[in-house]
């Protein structure tokens, strides 16, 4: 999954400031094991968001939290107006979050709203399906819990076993491109990559396609992350947020932010967008419960 899933992005508006001074404040919260690249760019990210707010007459404050518990605590206590988390974390805390949240949104990495995962292997390896993953080594992006969930579900379905019990070793890589390169340079037998990542890597080096084959393709139902506002957040502030994100292509600072996070665009999430994911997650947890 995208590096953004290693982050907890919280944008919160300071209602007091807004009410009194007609300005708002945005903030970010992250895990301690946040992606290095993002960590390097954290100051820039804060600066960009603050500048972006100022250009819309909003004062934005950016804050970072080290753990999910701290994040939820702050959100639950009304200190945060909005958080962004992975769909896995959302699904696990779905009941709690739905009770205090509204106005869900997400971002795309391409023209399509959903993300698709590929399971790839060297052509010279005799691995053609999930049936052949026994004792294989796998590389995937660290913290991409959704792709891991997809692999596990297929392993459970095909082999009736959790992947960690079948695979010889799993390499968690911090960079999105590393899993595929691990296969290319024969460090790993298998790799899970997003369709976007595969396409961009093949574009960079067409010989990848000659050496590596796609064994399985996931359903196109996955979202990279999910963001939502606290029910206590004023509608005016939410409107400002969606107003800004709706014209991101015209805003230089937002473009820079999206380039850093590799987003294509923001969009409001309606129920239908997450229904399939919810069903998929429900099936997975059922299978896991069944075989564990």
């Amino acid at each position, binding site marked *: 999954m995208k590096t953004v899933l290693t982050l907890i992005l919280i944008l919160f508006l300071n209602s007091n400031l807004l009410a009194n001074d007609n300005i708002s404040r945005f903030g970010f919260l992250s895990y301690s094991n946040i992606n290095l690249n993002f960590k390097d760019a954290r100051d820039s990210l804060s600066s960009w968001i603050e500048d972006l707010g100022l250009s819309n007459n909003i004062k934005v404050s950016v804050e970072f939290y080290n753990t999910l518990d701290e994040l939820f605590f702050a959100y639950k206590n009304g200190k945060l107006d909005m958080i962004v988390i992975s769909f896995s974390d959302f699904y696990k805390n779905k009941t709690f979050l739905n009770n205090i949240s509204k106005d869900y949104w997400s971002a795309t990495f391409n023209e399509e709203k959903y993300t698709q995962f590929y399971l790839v292997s060297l052509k010279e390896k005799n691995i053609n399906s999930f049936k052949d993953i026994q004792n294989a080594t796998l590389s995937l992006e660290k913290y991409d819990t959704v792709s891991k969930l997809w692999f596990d579900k297929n392993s459970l379905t095909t082999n009736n076993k959790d992947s960690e019990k079948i695979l010889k070793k799993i390499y968690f890589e911090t*960079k999105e*491109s*590393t899993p595929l*390169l*691990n296969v*290319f*340079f024969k*460090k790993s037998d298998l790799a899970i990559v997003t369709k976007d990542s595969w396409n961009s890597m093949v*574009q*960079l*080096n067409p*010989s990848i396609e000659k050496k590596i084959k796609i064994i399985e393709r996931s359903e196109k139902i996955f979202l990279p992350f999910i963001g939502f506002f606290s029910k206590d957040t004023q509608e005016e502030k939410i409107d400002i947020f969606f107003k800004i994100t709706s014209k991101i292509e015209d805003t230089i600072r937002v473009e820079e932010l999206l380039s850093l996070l590799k987003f294509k665009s923001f969009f409001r999430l309606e129920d239908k967008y997450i229904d399939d994911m919810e069903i998929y997650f429900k099936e997975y947890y059922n299978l896991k419960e069944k075989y564990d």
Partner: protein
Amino acid sequence: MFKLINEKLFGKVFVLIFLAIFIVLSIFTYQASILQKESILNSLQSESKTMADAITFLNKEEMIINNQIVVLEFLNEFLNVNNQIETMILSRKNGNNIILKKNYWDTVENKFEIYDKSQIDVSSYEIVISPYVEKEVFKYTYPIYFSGVLWGWLHIDLSLDEYESKISQMYQQFIYLTILMLFSSLILSYLIAKMVSKPIISLNSVSSEIAKGNLSIRANITTKDEIGILAKTFNNMLENLEFSQKELKNSHNKLELRVQERTKELENVNSQLEEKSKLLKELNDGLEEKVKKEILKQQKQEQLLIQQSKLAAMGEMIGNIAHQWRQPLNALGLVLQNIYYSYKMDDLDDEFMDKSIKKANLLTNSMSKTIDDFRNFFKPNKEEVIFELTDSVKNSITLIESTFLHNNIAIKYVVEEDIKVKGFPNEFSQVILNILTNAKDAIIEKNILNGEVTINTSKDNSYAYVKIVDNAGGIPKNIIEKIFNPYFTTKEEGKGTGIGLYMSKTIIETNMNGKLEVENIQNGALFTIKIPLKEILNDK
């Protein structure tokens, strides 16, 4: 301005200065462009080296353990964030090569030769056409050392867009600068050329006006340099010239008046000349007759002169004879007186008479001889003969000696014997006699108490010399040049004819090829007679 440019001198100076400035600026621009290019290349090299240092430093461990994945990802990201990089090749010694460019990477065994060539022990750079991006790039090759061991090379091909942009910008600046300097040069050249040539052109203009005759014009140049001084001098010269011209005009006018006057005078003269010519013609018509008359008149005068000369000579001769005779006549008188007293005393005897007669005869013979001597002396020689110069001089002295003694004038002579000359001895003696007579007359006239005349004869290899010196005080300077002229005399009327020295000079110089000269010495006059020796004459 264009009027000035048309002026030849201004044009030349302008073009010269403009070209000089333009050439200097061109050279400066050319040098500056080279330095600027080098500077930009050095900047690119420095940038490339910094990149290579950073890549090597950050991937040192991964390179050592040959973790190509991490290195590749790093290089890819590095390349993506550095738009300037066109291509990167990480070439491991004795290993494969990772080639990266925008939106492309690959691992290959071999790469293009231009990259292999630059894989040496030290870093290098050059501008080449990259076979990977097919355009010119700044290719920098960086050898990677770990613990002093060569690990491989990192080739970084930088885009030349910035370089070309800078170069383009530089050229643009140079163009602006060139245009600016061109205009500045034009203005500067114009000002300098104007400053240098304007005074000269002004002078030239003034000269042209002067050439047309306008002398009232002046050069209006007030500078203190050489041109200013020249203009000042020029103006002074013009003032002088104008003044001179005015003077000349006045002179011309005066001259015209003079010419008119002179013309009138000439006309008068002409008319007079015409009259004279008429008279001359009339004279010419009767000239022959007149000449004959004049010749006759001259002959008569000469006859008269000769007559006078003869009479004078005769007078001289008689005087000299009288002086010569004075002693024998006294002696004869004494003889006669002795005879008378002897007769009265009756002592007159035969013996006494014989003795007295002998004595008287002796005296009369002596007197007769004197006459003969004078007669011979004045008898002109008809033919040239060789004669002893000293004898001739002595003869002359003998003739005049008594006269000198009578006047208490001493004659000294120092003679050299055996001087033979050819000529007319009597005429020569007459010359000596003339000079001695003149000396005597001068001494008597000036009342010189111890009158003295010295005669010296001598000779050299060619000539005989007779020098006669007196102590009469010399000949006055104003007449010394005239004494040999005919009819010139300082003597009282009747005492001198004025032809003695004239005749003497004629005898010596015309008849005897000699020379008669006079000069004043300390106390008197020195007459020098110079006659060729007979040997010389014979040789001739």
